[in-house]
């Protein structure tokens, strides 16, 4: 491999790699604003300018490929002076409203200002201001904070495949806006907020909800479809405030869709059943009860009946195996089927739902259920009197005609009013486990919050179901 020298450190590189990426590998961080590894290089912000020996002008590290024998310096007075100048230029028209800005604490402009900027301002002219139009339900725009890096424009053009973010006017008056001031239409709009290096594009969903430095972050995997995008779930006080994309070049690169980003909301939905609930002998609707009674009802409803087990393909491999074991040991002849997306019953039927990330299967572990040997559920099935339905939170509940129903997992009350009993279990952010995406890649869920309400792990529920109750 060819080698270059960056700040005295020898660095190997692949031909074509730019100086920023090579430097990163040997522990030299070059500050950037407009550069993003997932987007084309435009060299506009000029923050990454470095000194290259034998070159009289500073060169932008983003647009300069490393070359054999190249000697790069990133901390010389010339480089530092440029960084200071760029920070000054970017801040003269910036409102500096960090105290009320949602980006504060995770803002490239703020961080680079702290590291490279001057504590004093020499600007006494009137600041440039813009009026902001509404950009639709996902993104809140604040153009006054914008530093014209054009990441959003490039994201739209190159990743989302839609030319909706544009630059209008020219020079100092350049405004980054939507084409013809229309609302955003891409189903990937949340990424605009992820990649914005300032508080210019923020999530309406997250607006004024939480200071970013209070958020605890958990690296996990999205359950929105069979791609399994890598995400970071951010919580405080056992409440999730936000999901953002996490880099995985083999699965989702740097992006997630809005459906996946906002999917977590059901976890905190007020209609989620968080206590065991049963339909008593007389009651027409589900009523909260204790775990003992809930399980007792479940046992009684299913005892001595023909039972079918339905496993949501939104559950983990481990949960699937536990259910199989339970069905085998306790309900010997009972069949086990999986359900999830009515139109996608097998991995053969799965495929890309759009050219970006979304898959047709709206559950995360269809591949895993097949690996466990579980067959898809046929809605015309009538061979049982009782269905025990296990569900993670995404799988679409099948219609179950003329069967009594017991639910184990995550349900909203209106979905399960006809059920005999609900035993609340964990959503994807409350548990650990393994899911297999459409590529066959095993990925791990990690719990971001503690189980809500009285919900328990499926393993624990089945253990008590099998071993507890009245002794015969």
């Amino acid at each position: 491999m060819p080698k270059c020298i960056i700040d005295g450190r020898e660095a190997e590189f692949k031909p074509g790699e730019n100086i920023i990426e090579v430097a990163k590998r040997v522990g030299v961080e070059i500050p950037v604003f407009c550069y993003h590894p997932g987007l084309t290089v435009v060299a506009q912000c000029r923050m990454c300018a470095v000194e290259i020996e034998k070159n009289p002008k500073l060169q932008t590290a983003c647009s300069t490929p490393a070359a054999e024998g190249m000697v790069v310096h990133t901390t010389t007075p010339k480089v530092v002076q440029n960084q200071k100048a760029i920070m000054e230029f970017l801040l003269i028209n910036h409102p500096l409203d960090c105290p009320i800005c949602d980006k504060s604490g995770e803002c490239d402009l703020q961080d680079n200002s702290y590291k490279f900027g001057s504590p004093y301002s020499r600007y006494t002219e009137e600041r440039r201001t813009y009026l902001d139009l509404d950009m639709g339900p996902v993104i809140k725009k604040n153009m006054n904070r914008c530093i014209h890096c054009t990441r959003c424009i490039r994201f739209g053009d190159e990743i989302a495949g839609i030319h909706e973010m544009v630059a209008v006017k020219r020079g100092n008056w350049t405004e980054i806006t939507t084409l013809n001031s229309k609302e955003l239409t891409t189903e990937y709009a949340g990424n605009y907020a992820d990649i914005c290096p300032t508080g210019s594009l923020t999530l309406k969903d997250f607006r004024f909800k939480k200071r970013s430095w209070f958020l605890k972050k958990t690296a996990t995997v999205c359950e929105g479809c069979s791609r399994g995008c890598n995400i970071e779930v951010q919580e405080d006080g056992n409440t999730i405030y936000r999901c953002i994309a996490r880099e995985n070049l083999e699965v989702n690169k740097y992006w997630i869709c809005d459906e996946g980003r906002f999917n977590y909301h059901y976890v905190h939905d007020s209609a989620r059943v968080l206590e065991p609930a049963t339909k008593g002998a007389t009651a027409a609707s589900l009523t909260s009860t204790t775990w003992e009674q809930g399980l007792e009802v479940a046992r009684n409803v299913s005892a001595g009946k023909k039972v079918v087990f339905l496993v949501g393909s939104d559950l983990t491999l481990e949960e699937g195996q536990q259910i199989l074991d339970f069905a085998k040991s306790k309900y010997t002849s009972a069949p086990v089927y999986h359900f999830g997306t009515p139109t996608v019953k097998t991995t053969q039927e799965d495929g890309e739902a759009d050219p970006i990330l979304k898959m047709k299967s709206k559950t995360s572990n269809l591949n895993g259920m097949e690996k466990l040997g579980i067959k898809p559920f046929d809605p015309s099935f009538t061979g049982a009197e009782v269905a025990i339905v296990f569900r993670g939170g995404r799988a679409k509940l099948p219609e179950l005609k003329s069967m009594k129903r017991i639910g184990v997992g995550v349900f909203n009350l209106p979905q399960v009013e006809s059920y005999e009993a609900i035993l609340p279990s964990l959503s994807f952010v409350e548990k650990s486990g393994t899911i297999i995406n459409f590529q066959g890649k095993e990925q791990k869920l990690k719990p971001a919050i503690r189980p809500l309400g009285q919900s328990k792990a499926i393993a624990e529920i089945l253990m008590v179901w099998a071993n507890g109750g009245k002794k015969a």
Partner: protein
Amino acid sequence: MSDTMDETVETMFIQHFQEESRPLAYYLKSMDGYKTVKKAFGMSQDDIIGEMKKSWLRGRGGASFPTGTKWGFIPKQSPKPKYLVCNADESEPGTFKDRDIMRYTPHLLIEGMVIGGFAIGAHVGYIYIRGEYAREAKLLDEAIDEAYEAGYLGKNILGSGFDFDLTVHRGAGAYICGEETALLNSLEGKRGEPRVKPPFPAQAGAFGGPTIVNNVETLASVPFIIKNGGDWYAKLGKLEKSGGTRLFCVSGHVKKPGVYEFASGSVTLRQIIYEHCHGILGDKKLKAVIPGGSSAPVLTADEIDVIADIEPMSKIGTMLGSAAIVVISEDYCIVKLLRRIAHFYAHESCGQCTPCREGTRWMWDIIERIEAGHGRDQDLQLLLDITENVGMKTLCALGDAAAGPVASFVKKFRADFEAHIRGGKCPNA
């Protein structure tokens, strides 16, 4: 128009700058029109580029890059079509020579482009003309029609087997589209913003194909070079590495402004101003000279004995640029002039890169404040700091173009600025 040439040297352009020279008939009769392209078809591509290199023709748009060398950068084989683009954006303030070429001798440009297209292997050419030149665009279109009809453009030109199509593309009035990569973006229908280089246009230019972008005067000089040889052209110039004659655009406070043609390196600024342009209006004293378009650092009255050519200008810290000489007399407010120039660059910055977008406006604001009588002592140092932070730091040369005049005006005419700051108004007013 001008009787200014050394007796022994022919002028190439200026004697033809008259209305009757426009049609094809005149070009064929009085300028040996389209004979040179026939000669070129008999030469190899390497021979033509070789003559261009020998000629020391240096780009007349402002950067003075040797044209032959530029043509040599075009790859012989290319999977994508190659293009020859004429930069007729002529947007550097003070420059108006290309307009005369297009207005009076459009066929000279067309013939130059056919030869250029043949030399680099391009079958498509564009003339990107600034939007304000509506009349010239129409004249070019008419000339192109004439040339198609007579078989000098189109398929199998003069039986050579070489095809060349030429189209006029009008800009929408942006200075930045004179920068060659912004021009190409604009030509492709995109926002007129300069591209990151590399790749240079010779590798990936218009529509991704190898592209040469040359100024009007540059391309219009090609027929003379191929007709008479590169050595002949090089010898027209009086200095090393600077061949041919050159059109100068003189404007401002002189008695006889206009377009002049001199052999490269044959005259000083003083000769141009006082001999050829008959001195300053009203016989006032000279205050300053902008020697190469508004982006060239300004010269004081003491600095005009410099030879008006590429290297001598560069040696004294300014540039010949597009050879647009703006002459300023003693009674004109230098702060007002710089405010106007700074406004221009702020207005014309494309806005994509930070130092130019923010710096050009900031400089303009400060200078405007000084002119309005609200300047402060620290403003001058601040202005110089900003020019340091903008110059050589931007994506294209517009940042340098904006910083150069500000730095040179403030350094060379500091007393004028201080008088505005301390007195609150122009001392000359």
